[in-house]
């Protein structure tokens, strides 16, 4: 039985807390992925990003993705934190962590979770560039 924790939050992501949330003495493998906003998109400099979600649906879709992963791999703990609102360049916008007795399940599950999150969860980012212009990313 996998313990799943899903959070959409407007504060900074606490990577240590996300990692700690999957700690378990039975789990020899614990893995954390941190997705951070970058200063450059192509050759344009980004100053900050704004994330917007259809919150109720985003939480539900993340739960479904997590439950699917937990059914497919023997994960004991699985945590997904995603930031909403303004995120400065260089800060974490998403953290995903998982634990399992052995390493193969977490190493397979994390890429699958990120791919699913990025293609399915109704969250959008808007980039703001140094010239002040903004752009919603829809691709």
């Amino acid at each position, binding site marked *: 039985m996998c313990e799943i924790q899903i959070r959409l939050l407007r504060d900074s992501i606490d990577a240590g807390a996300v990692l700690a949330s999957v700690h378990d003495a039975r789990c020899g493998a614990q893995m954390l992925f941190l997705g951070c906003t970058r200063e450059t998109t192509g050759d344009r400099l980004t100053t900050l990003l704004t994330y917007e979600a259809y919150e109720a649906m985003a939480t539900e879709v993340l739960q479904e993705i997590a439950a699917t992963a937990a059914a497919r791999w023997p994960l004991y703990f699985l945590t997904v934190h995603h930031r909403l609102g303004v995120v400065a360049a260089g800060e974490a916008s998403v953290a995903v962590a998982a634990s399992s007795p052995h390493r193969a399940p977490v190493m397979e599950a994390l890429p699958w979770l990120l791919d699913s999150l990025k293609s399915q969860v109704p969250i959008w980012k808007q980039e703001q560039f140094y010239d002040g212009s903004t752009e919603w990313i*829809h691709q």
Partner: protein
Amino acid sequence: MQLPILLFAGAKQIANADQILIDVHEPITAGEVLEKIADSMPELRGLASHSRLAVNGRYVTSQTIVDGNAELALIPPVSGG
């Protein structure tokens, strides 16, 4: 009848509103709802053609018959992560 459609991100920006109302006759499919959205606000047509419809927080296929009492949302291509 009139159906409210929730808008997000670039769609909300284009419409300058977080929802729009579309006039429909039931029964109507999700694909027809997306077409009605584009008809009612031509500026949205480009983005709507790449969007999905969510019914009560779930993606539906374009053939799905839409319940007029459900919460409907236009979901443009997502970019979280």
